[in-house]
C-alpha cells in the first residue's frame, strides 16, 4: 500500500460524521463576507451600504497581485462595508449583507443535471482557467491558495500528473468523504477540466484506506465509464497523517520529492488539487456558479448530531452549531478546521469562509494541553516530522534566537502539520516555537532578497 516515506503519525480518526449525508444549511439572516478569505492580497469591496445584491453578485474584486474576487452567497441589501471580527480575533474588512429572499443571478445554472465534457463542446483551456479565476476559487482544503494561479504553470515547467487530494487525513473531518460519495461523477468531470486546462494526460485521485466506500464507488465508476473518463486512476493510500500535505501526497502517489522552498510541486511535474476544489471547478465551469457555498463538517464528541453541511459562505458558525444540535455544555474549545492544523476561534459570530473545512467542538477535557516538562531527547519528534526536520533543535534555536541556525536547519520547509507537538511525550510546544522561527526567518530571507535587488 502506498504512503509517504518520511515521518508521520497516527492520531485517532474520530470520523463521527462519516455516515451523515450532506444537509443543506439554512440561509442565514445576515451573511458576512470577509475580504481576507484567501492567501495573498485582500479583495477590494465594490459595493456600498444600501446596494441590492443577488446570489452571485460580485462583492469584492480581486486585489493587486495574488488575489481572487469574493461573491455574495445570499440576496438582500448590503448593511455595511466595514471591519468585522474574523476568525483570528482581529477586525478586518468585510461586506455584511442583510438577507431578503433567495434570488439568484440568471447566469447561474441551478439545475442538478450532470454536464459532461461533451456538453461543453470545444471549450479552450484558457476559457476553463478564466472561468475558474472569475469564480474566485481557492484551495478548499484549508490553505486557500488561488486555484487559477496554480493552473498556470510557470514557463519551463510542465504538468505531468494531476493529483486530486481526497485524503482528508485530519481526524474528525468528513466533508471531502461525503462529497465523493454524493457527487462522484461531477468530481470526475472536474478532474477532466483540470487535465484539459493544463494539458496533462494523467490524473490520480489519492484516497486513504479509511474511506473504502469512496474508493470502491470511484473505482467502479471509472471501470464502467472507462472511455468517458480516460487517464484517471484511484490510488488507495495507507492511513497516515499528514498525507494530505501537498508534498507528502506527491511522494505517496507518484514517488517524487519536492525540493526545499522556493521549489513548488510543479517543479516535479505535479499539480495537487483538493477534491472540494475540483467540485467547485466543475460548478464554476459548467454551471457558471462562483464559489458561494462549501461543505463543512460540524463535529465533536459531545455534539448531538455530528453533521456535514452545505453552507453558504458567510453563514455564522453559531447557526451551524445550532443546526447540529446546539453547543454542548462541556465545550472547552471551538476549532475552525481539524484538530491537528485548525485554529481555535475567538468568537462564534465568525462566518464560514472559503477555507472552512470543519468546525470541531472539543470538550473541556480534550482541549487542555498537558503540563510541559523538559525535553528528554527521545527523538520522537524527529521520527514524526514528515519533512525530515529536527523539531527539538529548531525549537531550541528559536528559544536562543539563533535565526541562522534555524535557517541552516531548513525551518522554512516546515509545513506546520503539528506532528512533532502531537507526538512529544513532554508536551513541549514545539510547533508554537517553530512557527515563530519560520516567520522570522522568512522575514530575514525576504529582507535579504530585497537588499540584493536594491544593490543591483
Amino acid at each position, binding site marked *: 500500500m502506498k504512503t509517504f516515506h518520511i515521518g508521520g503519525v497516527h492520531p485517532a480518526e474520530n470520523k463521527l460524521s462519516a455516515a451523515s449525508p450532506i444537509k443543506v444549511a439554512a440561509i442565514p439572516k445576515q451573511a458576512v463576507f470577509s475580504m481576507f478569505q484567501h492567501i495573498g492580497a485582500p479583495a477590494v469591496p465594490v459595493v456600498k451600504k444600501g446596494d441590492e445584491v443577488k446570489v452571485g453578485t460580485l462583492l469584492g474584486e480581486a486585489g493587486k497581485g495574488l488575489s481572487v474576487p469574493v461573491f455574495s452567497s445570499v440576496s438582500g441589501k448590503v448593511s455595511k462595508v466595514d471591519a468585522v471580527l474574523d476568525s483570528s480575533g482581529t477586525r478586518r474588512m468585510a461586506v455584511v449583507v442583510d438577507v431578503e429572499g433567495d434570488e439568484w443571478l440568471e447566469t447561474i445554472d441551478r439545475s442538478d443535471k450532470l454536464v459532461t465534457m461533451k456538453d461543453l463542446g470545444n471549450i479552450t483551456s484558457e476559457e476553463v482557467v478564466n472561468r475558474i479565476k472569475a469564480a474566485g476559487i481557492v484551495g478548499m482544503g484549508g490553505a486557500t491558495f488561488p486555484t487559477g494561479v496554480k493552473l498556470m504553470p510557470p514557463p519551463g515547467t510542465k504538468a505531468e500528473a494531476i493529483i486530486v487530494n481526497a485524503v482528508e487525513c485530519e481526524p474528525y473531518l468528513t466533508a471531502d468523504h461525503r462529497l465523493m460519495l454524493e457527487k462522484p461523477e461531477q468530481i470526475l468531470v472536474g478532474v477532466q477540466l483540470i487535465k484539459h486546462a493544463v494539458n496533462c494526460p494523467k490524473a490520480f485521485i489519492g484516497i486513504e484506506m479509511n474511506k473504502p466506500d469512496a474508493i470502491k464507488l470511484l473505482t467502479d465508476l471509472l471501470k464502467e465509464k472507462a472511455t468517458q473518463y480516460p487517464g484517471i486512476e484511484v490510488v488507495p493510500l495507507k492511513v497516515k497523517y499528514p498525507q494530505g500535505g501537498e508534498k507528502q501526497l506527491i511522494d505517496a502517489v507518484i514517488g517524487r520529492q519536492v525540493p526545499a522552498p522556493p521549489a513548488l510541486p510543479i517543479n516535479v511535474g505535479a499539480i495537487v488539487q483538493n477534491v472540494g476544489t475540483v467540485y467547485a471547478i466543475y460548478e464554476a465551469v459548467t454551471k457558471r456558479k462562483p464559489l458561494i457555498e462549501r461543505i463543512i463538517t460540524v463535529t465533536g464528541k459531545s455534539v448531538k448530531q455530528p453533521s456535514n453541511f452545505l453552507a453558504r459562505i458567510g453563514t455564522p458558525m453559531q447557526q451551524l452549531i445550532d443546526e447540529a444540535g446546539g453547543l454542548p455544555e462541556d465545550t472547552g474549545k471551538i476549532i475552525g478546521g481539524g484538530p491537528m492544523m485548525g485554529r481555535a476561534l475567538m468568537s462564534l459570530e465568525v462566518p464560514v469562509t472559503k477555507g472552512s473545512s470543519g468546525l470541531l467542538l472539543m470538550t473541556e477535557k480534550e482541549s487542555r494541553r498537558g503540563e510541559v516538562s523538559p525535553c528528554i531527547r527521545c527523538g520522537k519528534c524527529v521520527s514524526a516530522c514528515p519533512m525530515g526536520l529536527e523539531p527539538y533543535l529548531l525549537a531550541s534555536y528559536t528559544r536562543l534566537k539563533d535565526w541562522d541556525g534555524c535557517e541552516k536547519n531548513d525551518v522554512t520547509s516546515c509545513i506546520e502539520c503539528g506532528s512533532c507537538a502531537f507526538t512529544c511525550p513532554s508536551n513541549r*510546544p514545539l510547533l*508554537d516555537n517553530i512557527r515563530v522561527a519560520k516567520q522570522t526567518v522568512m522575514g530575514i530571507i525576504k529582507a535579504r532578497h530585497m537588499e540584493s535587488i536594491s544593490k543591483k
Partner: protein
Amino acid sequence: MNVILIAVIVLGGIGLVAALILFLAGKKFAVHEDERIAKVAEVLPQANCGGCGFPGCSGFAGACVKAADKGSLEGLLCPVGGQAVMEQVADILGMKAEASAPKVAVVRCNGTCESRPRVAEFDGAQSCKVQQMLGSGETACAFGCLGCGDCVAACQFDAIRMNPETGLPEVDEEKCTACGACSKACPRGIIEIRLKGLKNRRVVVLCNNKDKGAQTRKACSVGCIACQKCVKVCKFEAITVDANLAHIDAEKCKLCRKCEDECPQHAIQAFNFPPRKPKAEEAQSPTSPTPNPSPVREGE
C-alpha cells in the same frame, strides 16, 4: 646523549625558524586599528545592548570614529550612557556633542485585569509573539498587552518587570536606558521610547487600540475611544488622533495636564507630577512654558 642533542638542536632550529616567520608575518600583516576606537570604546558602558543600532560597543566606537572623520557625530547616540557619555566621546574625538534629550520606555497599555476582562484562555507557549501569531490574545482587545513578558526577557538592564496584580509590564525609570530592546520585542508595538520630559514629567495616552470607540469600549474600560476631547482642550496642538487613537507629541506638550482631566476613559495619565494642589493654586502649577525646554537629567 647524541640523540638528545640532535633532538634539541633540530627542535630548537624549527622553533627559531617558526618564530622568525611569525615575527615577520606579524610585522607584514599587522592590523593598524585606529587607537581612537579603543579609547572611545573605553568610555562606553560596555553593555553591548545594541540599543545604538550597532553590533555592540566596539561597533559603535568604530562608527563614532568614522563619523568624526567625516566631520559630525550627528545621529549617533549611546542610549545607555546618554548625553554624559556622548560628551566624553566627543572630547576624545575633538568634536562637540549634540544636545540630546534623555528618553525612557513607556508602556502604552493600561488594560489591567479589572479594566480588560479575559474572554479567552491561551495555553500555548508562553510568549507574546506566539500568542500574537495565533490570535488576538486573551482579551477582546487586539492591540493591548498580551502579558507573557517578551519585553521583560528582552531587557538587559532589569528595568522592566511584570506586575502580577495588573498583568502589565512596569518600567523602572532609574534603570531604563531607552535602548529600545523591549520596544522591538513587543509584537504589538505597545512600548514607545519617549522623551523623559521636563523634570521627568510626562503626559501619555496609555492605549494602543485602533478600533472604533464603541468596540474599544466593549473590550476595555480604559481604552482610548478617539472622542477628540483631548484634541479640543489642548492649546498647544500637541495631540493628534490618528486611526482612532490619540497621541501626544512629547515635544509639543507643555505638561498642562488639561487633557488628563478631560479624558472620559482615563486613558491619558501624567507621570512624576507632585500631588495636586487645591484648585485655587492651580494657576501657578507646572504650566510655566519655557521657550525651549532643555530637559534636566535626574536621578541617575
